[in-house]
C-alpha cells in the first residue's frame, strides 16, 4: 500500500502539497495516483468534492482501489495562526490490499476522527523532516502511524447513530451503481455495511466508487454519472437515493427544455 499526506508547515514557504510517506520516514513529493485519474474540468480535486470540509472518496486507479480524505483537523497552526489541515491518501498496489482500503473507508465513514487523529499524532514538528527536496515543515513518525493503523484495523466499527436505522428497502444489492442522496447516517451505514461485506464487489469500471462530501451540487455528478457510484452530498435535497436512468434523462430533458 502506498500512503500519501497533503499538509503544510508553519512557515510561509511550507505550503500545502502532497507527499508520499513510507517506512524509512522519508517524505517524497508525489500526488496520489487518484488525483491524476480524477482530473476534472479545471484539473483540480475541488471539481469533484468540497475539500473545505471532510470529504471521503473511494476511487479506483488501474483497477486498484484508492482512498482520499480531505481537511482532517490537526493541532497545528501556521504563521498567521490559521489552523493547518491534513489530507490523507492511500492507494492499493495489489488486489490483496482491497480489504484494508475497504476497512479504512468504512472506518472513515463511521468516524473520520479516528484516521484524522492517527495522522495528526504521526505528524510532528519536533525535528527537521527527512524530505528528499524542500523541508515541508513537519516530520512523519512511521512507527506511530503503523501502531495507529493496527489499532484501527482491530477495532469493531460502532453504530453511534442507532436512531437512524438502515432503510432495508433502499439497501444496496450486489452492485454499487450511481445513486445520489443527501448525506445522512442511515445512508452511510448502508455503505459501511456494503464495504465490510467483502463478498460484495467493488465495480471495476468506476473512477469514483463512493464519495461523501459537503457542499457539492449534484449537476456535476449527474453529468459524470457513468464514472461514479454512490454519492452523498450535504447539498442534495432528496432524502431518498436517486438513481441514474429515467430520473437523469427526465432531469436532462427538463433542463434542456428550460435552458
Amino acid at each position, binding site marked *: 500500500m502506498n500512503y500519501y499526506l497533503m499538509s503544510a508547515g508553519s512557515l510561509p514557504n511550507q505550503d500545502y502539497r502532497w507527499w508520499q510517506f513510507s517506512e524509512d520516514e522519508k517524505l517524497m513529493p508525489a500526488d496520489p495516483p487518484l488525483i491524476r485519474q480524477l482530473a476534472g474540468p479545471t484539473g483540480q*480535486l*475541488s471539481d469533484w468534492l468540497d*475539500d*473545505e470540509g471532510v470529504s471521503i472518496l473511494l476511487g479506483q486507479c488501474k483497477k486498484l482501489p484508492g482512498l482520499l480524505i480531505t481537511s482532517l483537523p490537526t493541532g497545528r497552526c501556521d*504563521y498567521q495562526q490559521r489552523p493547518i489541515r491534513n489530507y490523507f491518501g492511500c492507494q492499493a498496489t495489489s488486489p490483496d490490499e482491497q480489504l484494508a482500503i475497504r476497512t479504512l473507508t468504512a472506518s472513515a465513514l463511521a468516524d473520520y476522527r479516528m484516521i484524522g487523529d492517527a495522522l495528526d499524532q504521526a505528524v510532528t514538528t519536533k525535528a527537521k523532516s527527512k524530505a528528499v527536496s524542500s523541508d515541508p515543515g513537519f516530520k512523519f513518525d512511521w512507527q506511530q502511524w503503523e501502531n495507529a493503523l493496527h489499532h484501527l484495523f482491530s477495532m469493531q466499527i460502532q453504530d453511534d447513530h442507532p436512531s437512524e436505522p438502515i432503510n432495508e428497502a433502499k439497501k444496496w444489492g450486489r452492485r454499487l451503481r450511481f445513486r445520489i442522496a443527501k448525506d445522512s447516517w442511515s445512508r452511510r451505514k448502508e455503505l459501511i455495511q456494503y464495504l465490510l461485506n467483502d463478498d460484495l464487489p467493488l465495480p471495476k469500471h468506476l473512477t469514483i466508487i463512493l464519495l461523501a462530501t*459537503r*457542499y457539492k451540487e449534484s449537476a456535476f455528478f449527474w453529468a459524470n454519472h457513468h464514472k461514479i457510484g454512490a454519492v452523498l452530498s450535504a*447539498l442534495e435535497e432528496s432524502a431518498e437515493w436517486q438513481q441514474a436512468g429515467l430520473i437523469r434523462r427526465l432531469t436532462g430533458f427538463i433542463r434542456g427544455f428550460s435552458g
Partner: protein
Amino acid sequence: MAGTTLRITMLGPRGVGKTSLLASMYNEFDVAVKNMGGLTLVPSTETSRILSERLAELKRQTEVLSSGYDSSGTGVSGTAVSREFLFELGLIAKPLEIKLVFTDFPGGFVTIQPQTVLDFIHEADVMVLAIDAPALMEQKGRWHETINAPRQMTDLIKRAVQAGHETKLLLLAPIKCETYLQSPRQSAELLATVKDRYHPLLSFLNADRLPNRIAVAITPVQTLGTVRFDRIEKTADGLKFFFRKIPGQGNYAPMYVEEILRYTLGFSIKKYLDDLSWFMRLFKLTRPFEHAIRKMAAERKESNDGFQILQGKDLLNLKH
C-alpha cells in the same frame, strides 16, 4: 443564466489573505451597491456555503481578539486546493447578465505548479495581487521578502503579461491595512511603500506599449476593520503575527473591500463594451444593468485613502 463571463484571479503567496479578501468582498457587495439601481450578486450554492463559512471564521477571529485570548487556530483556514468561486450579477428580479468567476489557489502553487498559475493569469481579465501590509510596513519591511515574495510574484506576472495580448487589470491590494490607513500621512506612506517595493514590477508594466493594455491600481483594504497590528514574534515553529482588537468598536467591520469590485466591474464592462460593435451591444447587456454598473464603478476611490490608478486610466474610464 448569465451570458458573459469575467474571470478574476487572486494572486499572492501563502497566508497573505486571498480567501479572506474574497469572503469580505462577497459580504460587502450589498453595501457597495446600495442605491445602485438594484444590482445584485448571486453566488452559486457551493460558493455561498463555502464563503459563508469563511466569513464566520473571520468574524470569530475578531471576537477572539476582542476577548483578549490567544487567537491561534482561529484564522481563516489556508487554501489547500485551487477552486473557482462562481457568482452571477444582474438586476434584482431580472435575468442575471454577467458571470463572475474568481479563481483562488494555494500560494504554494506558484512554486509547485507554476504552469497552472500562468494558465489562471492568461485566462483572467483581472488579477488581484494580495499583499500582506504588516509584512510590508513593519520593522522597515524586514519580513516583506519572506511573506510577500515580491520577486517571485513579479517574475510570474512578467511571464504571463509578456506572453499575452489581452487587456488586463492588475490590482495591487495590500491586505490587513487597518493600522496604516488612519491618517492621510499614513495612507501616503503605505502608497509610497507599495510603489517602492514593487518598483521592478511597476516599471516593467509601464514600459513600451504595456500601459495601453495593462491597467494598474493600488487598492488597500481593511479585511477585519476593527483590529490593529500588535507585534511579530519569532517562535520555535517560526514566525507569528499578532493583532489586537480596538476596544469599544464593533467586531467585524471590513473597509474598502468593495472597491476591488468597483474597479473590477468598471474595467470589465469597459473592456466588454470596447470589444463589441454598437449593434451587438444593443443585444447583450440591458441598458438599466449597464447604467447601474457605470454608476457603481464611478464611485470608486481613485486618489485618497491610499488608492491610486498608476496606469491605464483609459482602460478604466467608462464614458457616460
